[in-house]
């Protein structure tokens, strides 16, 4: 059962879905999705004694859009404000765009972060910089000009039908993806989508402000989980991050893609919980292996256990 509320954050408020009890873990969603995507993994995190606080980033889900370009720093600002209100430093979990925002929070306020779990984090591509610079021409105001709101009844009905597919009943990431269709019928969400996508593409990769150079300075215990079938994040990023962050644990869920995984959605959720347990293990004095670790495919095993139950 989730609890949800608007929580104060800087000059805006963020919508927060909350599951479980215990020490706080803040979960940050991928581009275009929202906080309900973490409903499945939150059950597993609860078993680890963690209370999941999944936030809708500004402009997504139920959080209002803020003024200005949605750079990773701008998205991180209200999250930092929210972190400051918590009774103890949280673990930060971020997926894709959420991973980039979590990194920004840990870089700016390391003493307020207990640990970092980055799931297929978006990092600027080091190849084809010219291609990405073309994003300068993308104007977020286009979002408001697309007349998609007229199609809202149709999009909502289609989404409801898709969400009703039995295979998606427990797959919260897929359900959040399905809902993107009608989220985008909201002009503010479209603007947020274009703005965040533009700023991710323009996120500097090199130079002192480039995130790759700043990775070396991260001192927060970090676990990075990569997906073996990810078509959005280059596999070369895993080796590059391992080189720049030699103390970070590196996990791979080989059977999963970026976030829509069909039969393997449980494998991703299981891997996210395993990655988080690494942070807790480190606090208990257990050392991480420096080697890459493959998390198991649990698709058949957990599905049959659920059927039996």
């Amino acid at each position, binding site marked *: 059962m989730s609890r949800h509320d608007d929580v104060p954050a800087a000059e805006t408020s963020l919508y927060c879905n909350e599951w479980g009890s215990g020490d706080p873990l803040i979960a940050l969603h991928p581009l275009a999705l929202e906080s309900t995507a973490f409903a499945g993994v939150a059950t597993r995190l609860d078993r680890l004694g963690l209370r999941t606080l999944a936030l809708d980033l500004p402009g997504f889900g139920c959080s209002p859009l803020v003024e200005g370009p949605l750079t990773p720093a701008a998205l991180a600002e209200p999250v930092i404000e929210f972190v400051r209100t918590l009774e103890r430093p949280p673990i930060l979990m971020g997926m894709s765009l959420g991973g980039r925002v979590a990194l920004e929070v840990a870089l700016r306020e390391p003493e307020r972060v207990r640990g970092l779990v980055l799931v297929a984090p978006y990092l600027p591509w080091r190849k084809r910089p010219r291609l990405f610079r073309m994003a300068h021409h993308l104007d977020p105001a286009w979002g408001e000009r697309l007349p998609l709101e007229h199609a809202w009844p149709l999009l909502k009905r289609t989404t409801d039908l898709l969400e009703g597919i039995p295979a998606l009943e427990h797959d919260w990431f897929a359900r959040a993806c399905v809902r993107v269709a009608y989220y985008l019928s909201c002009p503010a969400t479209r603007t947020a989508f274009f703005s965040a996508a533009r700023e991710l593409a323009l996120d500097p990769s090199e130079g002192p402000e480039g995130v790759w150079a700043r990775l070396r300075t991260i001192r927060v215990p970090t676990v990075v989980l990569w997906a*073996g079938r990810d078509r959005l994040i280059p596999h070369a990023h895993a080796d590059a991050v391992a080189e720049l962050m030699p103390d970070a644990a590196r*996990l791979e869920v*080989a*059977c999963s893609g970026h976030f829509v995984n069909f039969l393997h959605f449980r494998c991703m959720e299981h891997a996210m919980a*395993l990655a988080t347990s690494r942070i807790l293990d480190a606090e208990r004095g257990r050392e991480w*292996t420096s*080697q*890459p*670790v*493959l*998390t*198991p*495919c*649990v*698709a*058949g*095993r957990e599905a049959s256990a659920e059927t039996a139950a």
Partner: protein
Amino acid sequence: MGSMRQEEEAGLLPWTGLDERTCLVRWDARGHGASEATLREEDYRWSELARDLWGVADALELSRVAIGGISMGAGTALHAAVLEPQRTRGLALMAPPTAWGTRPRQARLYRSSVKLVERVGLGPFRFFGALGSRMVGNQGVARVTRSVMRGLAHADPRAVAAALRGAALSDLPDPERLEGLDVPTLILAWKGDASHPLSTAEALATRLPKARLEVAGSLAEIEVWPETLNSFLGGLP
């Protein structure tokens, strides 16, 4: 190459007949079943898996335990007993694998399998495994082989290759070290399986000072193993 799930699918669990006095702890070895995998072959040496066994015992705060396993699990248990004999109440070794003189040939087979996995993946491996299981006379062995091959359908080829390389690097402890292992031991072996030859079971029975060997020639004889194991554990000091 097996896992708890595959043991259950094979339906040949010697563990099922244990009475209520026994607290049974099972786990999937690293890189197997639902446990995490590393890609370094040294991590899969049986001596490393034995350290995992004592890691599990430590985590559960178990000071002195009876230990056992099937095939690779038997190798792991034997290494674990050699590592910590004072913590070992008893040893149950089922289907002991190739060892010492018969190990180099098995290691070559594993290394050839690694080449196959690396070049074409796990598909042919599963096909030939399934085919081979139909040609085995012993129905118990055939069931185990089939369940292992089904399990490979969900495995990662890199992890399988690392585990096979680790198995190729592994052997049972030196026979001289076994002679000093003063631990009650039950050895359960079956006939008709070149990967788990009777010669290893017989050599273990000769070397280990407190060993008893039982050999099954048919599925019916394997199916009484739970009772044999239960009675062995009940008689441990």
